[in-house]
């Protein structure tokens, strides 16, 4: 069964049909790219997948489970985690606490246990610390665990956002323009890291990206959105050589 199966997804904002008849199928462990010109509706698709917007029509099956129209929290629990185009960290919290916030629904104890430091608090906090540090080590952030997230350099903030998303133990990871604002060197190491995340966590990844080097370098399949509709879909090199796609990006 496919990890993510989207059928005929659509949403309108007033008179504007932002996404129309969007279909996508992503297999487990795949690295899938979603590209398209500015304003094509890519981030809207992410917002539909994560429940920020409710779709007007269509189905979203995550690992066979229908999640269309559910709330963001429920979708997070169902197993979709995301990062944001403009980084959204908990900036006044430490790097470690950012990741521990991601573990929120996996290590539960009551508020009373938290105030009186009951055994359940001790146990879960210890586990949380261990898990969070493990994740930080994967992203080479363990040395910065105590720093405020806002004090991290840009590239590391992107990494931390991915670490936090992975802390929720998702089935599907959505990356919204992970390479935005990065120089070629940083993009290169980001590509290695995304590949590593996929292999290390056995993760299914859907990413939005404008950087064609990154897209052609790591995505196995692509969907191209234009004016809210799928223009082309398939293996990366086929899609990128599709004349329609080239026209959509470069104009006539």
């Amino acid at each position, binding site marked *: 069964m496919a990890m993510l199966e989207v059928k005929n997804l659509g949403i309108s904002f007033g008179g504007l049909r932002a996404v129309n008849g969007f279909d996508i199928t992503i297999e487990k462990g795949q690295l899938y790219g979603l590209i398209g010109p500015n304003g094509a509706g890519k981030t809207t698709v992410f917002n539909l997948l994560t429940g920020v917007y409710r779709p007007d029509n269509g189905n979203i099956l995550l690992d066979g489970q229908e999640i269309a129209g559910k709330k*963001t929290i429920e979708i997070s629990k169902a197993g979709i985690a995301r990062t944001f185009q403009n980084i959204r960290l908990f900036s006044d919290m430490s790097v470690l606490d950012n990741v521990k916030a991601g573990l929120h629904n996996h290590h539960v104890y009551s508020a009373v246990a938290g*105030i009186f*430091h009951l055994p359940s608090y001790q146990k879960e906090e210890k586990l949380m610390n261990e898990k969070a*540090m493990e994740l930080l080590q994967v992203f080479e952030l363990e040395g910065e665990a*105590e720093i405020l997230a806002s*004090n991290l350099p840009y590239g590391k903030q992107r990494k931390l956002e991915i670490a936090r998303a992975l802390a929720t133990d998702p089935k599907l990871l959505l990356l919204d323009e992970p390479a935005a604002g990065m120089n070629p060197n940083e993009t290169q190491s980001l590509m290695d890291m995304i590949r590593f995340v996929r292999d290390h966590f056995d993760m299914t990844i859907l990413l939005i990206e404008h950087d064609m080097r990154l897209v052609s370098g790591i995505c196995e399949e692509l969907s191209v959105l234009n004016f809210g509709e799928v223009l082309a879909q398939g293996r990366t090199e086929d899609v990128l050589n599709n004349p329609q796609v080239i026209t959509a990006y470069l104009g006539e």
Partner: protein
Amino acid sequence: MKKRMNKTAKQNAITYGIVILAYIIMQSMLMTGHISSSLSGLLVPFCYYVILAVSLNLTVGYLGELSLGHAGFMCVGAFASVFFTKCMEDVITVSLVRFMLALLVGALVAALFGVLIGIPVLRLRGDYLAIVTLAFGEIIKNLVNVLYVGKDSSGLHFSIKDAMSLGMEPGGTTIINGPQGITGIAKDSNFTIGIVLVLLTLFIVLRLISSRDGRAIKAIRDNRIAAESIGINITKYKLMAFSVSAALAGLGGALYAHNLSTLSATPKNFGYNMSIMILVYVVLGGIGSIRGSVIAPVVLNLVLDYFLRKFQMMGDNVVLQFLSDNRMLVYAILLIALMLFSWSPKAIEWRERVFHKKQPKEAE
């Protein structure tokens, strides 16, 4: 990680230490009689101001929402607890036990109001939330002013008209008498209990904010959308922070009320001026700094008390009258001065030069 745990624990220990040290100093001054009567009258107020400031800091500094109705929750806690005390005067004769229960009642009723008010109000953000909480504080104050409650052998009677319409049997007593409020309250509050309550408040707030729930609350403050995306229940945690804050304000209100012989809701004690004053304590102490909220109310009141006495001794009645009437003006000037001191480039430069010379620059 060990180091970090120790660091937080150490910071918290210092905060507790400051409170205990202040208690020991004040208590020994009280016993040896080295304390002016006006200062000894301020000891219990210090305690409830600190409780109110620390609890408001939970809403303002950690939940990140500006609440201007804190005096409303204080009012609810004050009246609920005193009402309980009056009703139980004959039933529970041990005053300490009765007072403890009254404090609990005050906190619980205030928490209940916190939840009730929080459900609609927390849908709002920023200025709108501030305006609605401001209105809440005023409404509570005015409601209490028209509330009449009496007790006779057949039970409790309520009215919002006047004392006559309670329709009590002869021999019944009016407990809450509208604008006159509640009279003849047993003065159960004292400095020691106040300090214990301050420590309890600190304990609850400091432990809460460093727990899983506290992380969720701070995550919502820092980025609501991201918090939601990792599965944090926004409504639940906003409500939790808001109602804990309200409960502690109720506790402060109960302590306040049992320090008086007559409790009535006036613009002076439960009006928006009070809410603003608590907010001033929080801001001056530092938004998000619990220790600041402990120190600011005490220092501000001590300084004000000092000047009031100075002018009293000088016989300068004009200034004296002006100062005691325009407390808020003094606070406003202080706030402006603080703003200038913390944000003007010259001040920052000066502080860097003077204070940060020896300290290594924080890792970035």
